[in-house]
């Protein structure tokens, strides 16, 4: 019987192709926008997750809490603090530096390029993917000997030297008031997706270079934060908690006074924000489903009136109230579900095309699709109830007389 009703519904839809399509349009647009918004949200999430993976999810920054009012100089860090942490936790920490950076103009011949210098340790490639194409990375000797050697990416080299392979070339820059000559020892290639470039801005004019952190942080300097990479992602929460306790104790503070900013937390909050935004906008889009549903109700009412005589005939042949009700409910549910399916294809297709244009893989969750199509059928059922019950309640004699 259900099958019969579905066949009847399809033939009714076919008879009024244009009208059925226009009726579906509300649902198509509604479901299409819900699907695309939710999928854009999901895609953004996965893109950000990828970005954070690249940054390194085990990364964290330890610093004194901004909520601590009576900050003392001893709340900040020295190289001795770092040495003590390293001594105590050893291999559990994959990498650590003083989170030092500086910007200055780099001069080469008549070229002047604004550079930012990132102070790192020699084992930085252990925790960050660095695709070295020329020369070498900074080594332990560079760090310990405070050698004025740098490693930069191909674009920065191009900007400063006018060529990619600038190994052995020197430039002048002023760090902390000292004008010095720096030597390029290595060139690496940055691989960024078009989407990343869009989000972070392509580096077209400036430059970036890694320098030994010992050039930027001197033995008696106090610095604000320690950058850490845990060796084991599974153990990192525990490790970071222990480091916090140790550091707090050594500085005469409570562990709560220190802040451990982890990339993972940040990722969680960004994901939460994106999810919330997608939900909110998707919710607004869902209102258009309501409008689509009202459109279906409207057309079903017209259809019921037009088919009054058919209803009378069916009743005279033995159709019960329930039979007529189900017939029209099936029809409205199918119109709506068809709209939902077309909307899903449209929304999903748009996101996929957009994604492939930006060079990212669109994420369309099957659960979301099932939910959307199911929900559209429910919308059709709900808004079909009134017209269907109107049809079912028709008096057979009156209905048979209807012209």
């Amino acid at each position, binding site marked *: *019987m259900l099958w*019969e009703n579905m066949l009847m519904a399809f*033939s009714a839809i076919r*008879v009024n192709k244009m009208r059925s399509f226009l009726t579906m349009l509300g649902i198509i647009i509604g479901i299409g926008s819900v699907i695309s918004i939710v999928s854009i949200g999901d895609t953004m999430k996965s893109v950000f997750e990828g970005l954070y993976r690249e940054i390194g999810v085990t990364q964290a920054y330890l610093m004194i809490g901004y909520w601590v009012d009576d900050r003392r100089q001893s709340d900040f860090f020295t190289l001795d603090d770092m040495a003590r942490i390293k001594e105590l936790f050893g291999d559990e920490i994959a990498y650590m530096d003083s989170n030092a950076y500086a910007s200055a103009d780099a001069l080469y011949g008549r070229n002047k390029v604004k550079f930012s210098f990132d102070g790192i340790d020699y084992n930085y490639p252990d925790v960050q993917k660095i695709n070295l194409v020329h020369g070498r990375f900074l080594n332990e000797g560079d760090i310990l000997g405070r050698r004025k050697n740098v490693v930069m990416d191909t674009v920065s080299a191009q900007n400063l030297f006018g060529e990619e392979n600038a190994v052995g070339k020197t430039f002048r820059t002023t760090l902390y008031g000292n004008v010095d000559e720096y030597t390029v020892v290595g060139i690496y290639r940055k691989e960024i997706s078009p989407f990343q470039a869009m989000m972070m801005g392509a580096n077209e004019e400036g430059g970036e270079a890694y320098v030994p952190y010992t050039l930027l942080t001197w033995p008696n300097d106090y610095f604000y934060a320690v950058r850490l990479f845990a060796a084991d992602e599974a153990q990192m929460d525990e490790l970071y908690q222990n480091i916090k306790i140790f550091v707090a104790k050594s500085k005469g503070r409570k562990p709560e006074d220190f802040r451990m900013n982890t990339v993972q937390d940040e990722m969680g909050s960004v994901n939460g924000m994106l999810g919330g935004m997608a939900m909110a906008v998707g919710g607004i889009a869902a209102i258009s489903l309501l409008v689509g549903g009202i459109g279906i109700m409207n057309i079903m009412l017209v259809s019921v009136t037009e088919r009054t*005589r*058919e209803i*009378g*005939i*069916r*009743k*005279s*042949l*033995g*159709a*019960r*109230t*329930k*039979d007529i009700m189900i017939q029209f409910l099936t029809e409205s549910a199918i119109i709506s579900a068809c709209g939902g399916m077309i909307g899903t294809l449209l929304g999903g297709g748009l996101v996929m095309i957009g994604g492939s244009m930006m060079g990212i893989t669109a994420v369309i969750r099957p659960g979301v699709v099932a939910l959307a199509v199911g929900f559209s059928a429910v919308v059709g059922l709900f808004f079909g109830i009134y017209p269907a019950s109107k049809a079912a309640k028709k008096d*057979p*004699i009156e209905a*048979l007389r209807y012209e």
Partner: protein
Amino acid sequence: MKSILGGLGRKKLPDYITDNISEDLIRLEDLVKVYDTGALKVLGLKRINLTIHRGEFVAIMGQSGSGKSTLMNILGCLDRPSMGHYYLDGVDVAAMDSDELSLIRNRKIGFVFQSFNLISRTSALKNVELPMTYARKNKKLREERARQLLARVGLGKRAEHMPNELSGGQRQRVAIARALANEPPLLLADEPTGNLDTAASVEIMELFSQLHKEGTTVVVVTHEEEIAAFTERIIRFRDGEVLSDSPNVPREPRGRDSAPDAEEGIELRDT
């Protein structure tokens, strides 16, 4: 009959459907129909007492306003009497609710209307299947029987045609096939030839005669004497009352060779 009806549905049917206890197929006792138009009450039928036996071929005649349409609606279980009793096949249907009446219409009554009332854009076959669909018969059985019935009314080759591709007479024959779908004991025809030309009218009435001879009870509501002439009993109505009720010697059906639809002929076979 009982065994066939009893085996139709998946669920057990109520007794009023399965019981066939009465030789009096239709018995009206003090039947009254009052139309309440708000300001005034109109008496549609005034205390009708009437019995139609199983296997009769009856014409109900009268001018418009005579109450024959009202009676037709009540006999067809499309409407309920205001007072009195209507025993259809021994069961009082006067007090049934609308879904019970649907079931009665489905199993006990086959309708033939003046304007054919086929469902448009639906093939002859599907139209004939419809009462069986509402009787929850399975698809294979439905289609088989529908084809049989269409062949029986001479439309075996037109099963897939849409109503608008058929002539009036053909449409009415589809309607008759549909009326016979659930083997109802009562065939109720309301001005069945009203929209047909003379040749088609004769053809339809001959079909009714044939069905009557095979045992179906046929009640034809009409205002045309020529149509009533085919039946064996004529009941005349005037002003909501029975004016006369008399037997009639039916007009002789013509020979088969003069059938207008010579290409297919009207094959009437035993079921």
